[in-house]
């Protein structure tokens, strides 16, 4: 068996992630998994202050919650899509809402992907990387 999990880092570029979620435990969970794969992570617990930091940092990918205490994730997504300097930015929703309806609305607001909670430590990272154009090297060229 090719113990793929341990080789993921090779031949991959390190991505800059920005996570927005009003649950700091969830941020920690995602950040720990992404950092373990060699990516760097910034985060914000409140949606309102996130945008200015994202505009400044220009991450490769934003992972955002859909329903937060202070901000609607869809609005945030649309707002980011309107920014000139964030052309290549990938936006992925991470939400406990599982219905098609919300996934569709997320796509309409400009999202590149949609991941549902609960998150699984074994299966969280690879779809995120796939959305960012990184393929799992163990899957072949």
């Amino acid at each position, binding site marked *: *068996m090719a113990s793929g999990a341990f080789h993921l880092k090779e031949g991959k570029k390190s991505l800059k992630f920005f996570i927005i979620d009003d649950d700091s435990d969830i941020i920690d969970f995602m950040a720990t*998994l992404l950092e373990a794969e060699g990516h760097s992570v910034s985060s914000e617990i409140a949606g309102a202050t996130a945008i200015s930091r994202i505009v400044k940092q220009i991450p490769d990918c934003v992972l955002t919650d859909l329903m937060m205490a202070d901000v609607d994730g869809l609005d945030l997504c649309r707002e980011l899509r309107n920014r000139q300097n964030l052309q290549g930015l990938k936006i992925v929703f991470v939400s*406990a809402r599982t219905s098609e309806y919300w996934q569709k609305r997320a796509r309409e607001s400009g999202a590149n992907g949609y991941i549902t909670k609960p998150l699984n430590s074994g299966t969280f990272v690879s779809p995120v990387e796939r959305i960012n154009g990184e393929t799992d090297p163990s899957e072949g060229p």
Partner: protein
Amino acid sequence: MADDAAGLEQKLAVLRSSYAAKLPDKLEEIEEAAAPLSSEPSPEEARHALDALQRLSHKLAGSGETFGFKDLGKVARQIEDACASLLEMDDPPSSRRREELGELLKSLRAAAGNASDVSPPAEEAVEDGGEKARKGREEKTVLLAIEDAALTSKLEMELANFGFQVRLLSHPAELGDKLKEFRPAALVVDLDTGENGQPGCCAPKCLEDEGALCCPVVFLSAGDDIKALLAAVRAGASTYLTKPVNTIELVDALDDLIETDDQEPYRILIVDDDQSTAGYNKTILQNAGMNTSVVTDPMKVMERMGHFAPELILMDLYMPGCNGQELASAVRLRPAFAGIPIVFLSGETDRDKQLAAMGCGGDDFLTKSISSEHFIESVKTRVQRFRMLRSLMVRDSMTGLFNHTTTNELLETELARSRRNKTPLTLAALDIDHFKSVNDTHGHAVGDQVIKNLAKLLKQRLRSTDIIGRMGGEEFAVAIPGAGGRQAREMMDRVRLAFSEIQHRTEMGAFTVTLSCGIAEFPRFTTAQLLTEAADRALYAAKEGGRDQTVLAEA
């Protein structure tokens, strides 16, 4: 690379335990949000409460299952949905709907109580044998095997008052049949001779044959002599009470016994390349109320360990690709798993080979011909001990605060979070002044009381998000996320003043004690080690400066 994976698993385990530690606060917050709904709320109050409840349960639904609390996540989702549908209606919720919501909140509490279910690993679901065990216990049924009719009816009534379901034997010989019929949460047995001068209805030696040892047994006897005690021990006594029976004592004993049996099911990882053997062992353990996860490919053990967080690994000795000894050694290399009991199960009867296997990190060796009772018992004993050690490893036993290791781990987590969020974090190091003289003057018992008083004060005065640890002796540490140096100094100064006003009472009268505190802040100090060193230096400066003061570390 293997180290990275171990490091990750360790980090995830820390996140999981820190999440579990915060659960009670989260539940409290939810119950507080829902509180207005339990009386007659105005439409506005109801809407406000439902909004808050929806938001909080949504969060819990997202995080609960992620951190392995499967049932909790499910119930939280139900609450969220219920709130959403109530909010869609124009009218405020009827009392019936509010009651239904109240019921869901109760299930949430219950789900958190036996928050045991680990999220299913990638390919194989964890099979929950705990459900079976829980069902049989739900009603706390206590079976009385007492011949003395007066005592029986007295206990029957009094135990019922305490909420136990009491069942009786109509005849001593009935015990075996009754036990086949249902499994009581506990058995109360009178050891004394019956009225006709015959040995008590359930003489210890009969109990084992009757299968009574499947549940905790409380023995009652007038005799306090060593013979009676020995007989009770041999019969597997969990508790022994002397007559006349004090009901409160009996209730306490039953609560203790039933409580420990109510715990979350044990999690056993079975590693065996032979599917059928694995399946057989799985069935035995599940029937005994444990949760199991099976791995047939030894190479996948590490992966599964991270998901399942087992409390014991049952391992076949001979497998293709690598043998059990190697695998055990490999597991033991990772600090996070070094303490997990590993039990080998094999057809190997050569004692030398068995011993060699134990030398490589195995804790026990069971041969495949073992009886299922013995098998279950060996597994149970090891997991119990592991749980006890683990709880000792996370919390300081005297104060219930986090211990040294855990505090440092949590500090790392908080620091990583502050780095990502670009928020401040402060670390405070506290030390009780002249503690040695407290011990010397008043004795260690009083010294311990002073330590407990400080622990209590810290818990009261600080926020639930602050991490409070006892680092050893009279030293404490507090990590305060979100607070800068100045703010933390104000907080700790209030604690310092409050502590100096506490009257510690002794038989000789009361006395007061002070403390000194050193504070260091992130990002001025960038790593956990630098923070700790700086806080310690500041504490030292506080001591040098005359004690009973708080000093903020300069860069």
